[in-house]
């Protein structure tokens, strides 16, 4: 009888194993990432030197006292692996992480915000997430709009008037009107401006700075 359902049985057992491994690896904060494997098994000095350099830059930020609240975390998971909309970090509630705090790269470019905090890990929703909507301001024209994610590698900037003087390469920052983000955080640059018929607004595409670089360590701060 069981032999008839061997596929289903195998599927069930292996799914159970997979869920267990996923859950336990999140709780133990162990990613099977290559950088970590290299560190532990092969002692890749180049990688350690690069990591030291990155951490030193983060330490400089801490000394400059830009943030009143400051945590550094390591990325242990990206989903999907290109233009990740969800990022899992190795710090959680017991490390003092709280929800809805902005997350940055070491260059202080905006990555997103902390969405969910568990005991030992947290989930960040990045600018590429379809739920991301942030009030932003254009660097030169000072016009305020809303940036939307979900269009990786770009972000869609809405509600900029049709007759705006916005130009390509103009920088985009968070505005004063954002609930979770303090003003002036660098997001990206304008890469394309589309004028659509029957619309009062321009359709502007912004390339975020985080699209240009990989994210290994993140700064959580406000």
């Amino acid at each position, binding site marked *: 009888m069981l032999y008839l359902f*061997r*596929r289903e049985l*195998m*599927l069930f057992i*292996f*799914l159970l*194993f*997979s*869920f*267990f*491994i*996923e*859950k336990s*690896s*999140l709780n133990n904060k*162990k*990613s*099977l*990432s*290559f*950088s970590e*494997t290299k560190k532990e098994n092969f002692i890749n000095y180049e990688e350690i030197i690069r990591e030291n350099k990155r951490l030193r830059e983060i330490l400089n930020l801490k000394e400059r006292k830009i943030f009143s609240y400051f945590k550094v975390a390591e990325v*242990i*998971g*990206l*989903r*999907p*692996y*290109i*233009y990740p*909309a*969800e990022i*899992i970090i190795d710090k959680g509630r017991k490390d003092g992480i709280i929800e809805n705090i902005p997350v940055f790269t070491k260059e202080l470019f905006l990555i997103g915000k902390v969405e969910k905090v568990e005991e030992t890990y947290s989930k960040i929703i990045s600018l*590429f*997430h*379809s739920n991301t909507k942030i009030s932003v301001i254009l660097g030169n024209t000072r016009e305020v709009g809303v940036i939307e994610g*979900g*269009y*990786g*590698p770009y972000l869609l900037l809405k509600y900029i008037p049709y007759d705006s003087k916005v130009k390509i390469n103009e920088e985009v920052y968070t505005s004063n009107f954002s609930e979770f983000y303090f003003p002036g955080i660098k997001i990206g640059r304008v890469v394309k401006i589309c004028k659509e018929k029957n619309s009062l607004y321009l359709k502007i595409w912004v390339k975020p700075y985080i699209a240009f670089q990989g994210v290994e360590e993140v700064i959580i701060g406000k």
Partner: protein
Amino acid sequence: MENRRKIFLTFEQILLVSIFQYIFFNFFHTKITPSFFLVYLLLLSFEGKIELALFLSFILGLINDIFARDIPGSSSIRFLLIVYFSSFFVVKSIKSKSFFIFIFSFLYFLLLVFKGKNEMLWEGFTLLKYAVLFSLFNFLIGFVIGIFTEELRKRWEERIF
């Protein structure tokens, strides 16, 4: 003897697929990386080796997570689901195998960006663009492997008989 040969052959195939996947993950800096593991598992499933495909889905999923820097276990779940659903299709010709590889790769990509409650992490057009690109890469790999194995089989048969 025959069993030992089969086990050895499977190990050889896994090693080869892993090498290709590793090379593509680390040395080809393309936006979308084709999944050699997924293509291999689907081909196994289409050949009727479903139990082996399910077992390897779990193992190769873990290896994929190491390569892709993902949370261990997450790829295994996706591979297992895709292989299970593909096991209901009996596919023989290279063309239809490639076609089904395209379809299941598309579904795999949707699983990758599935948020839950019928929502996706990306918006429609972007999702479609990358899903089609990923499926197309896998389709091509499946097609090339299909032709290559067919050619090998032909030559092997000619030599023996």
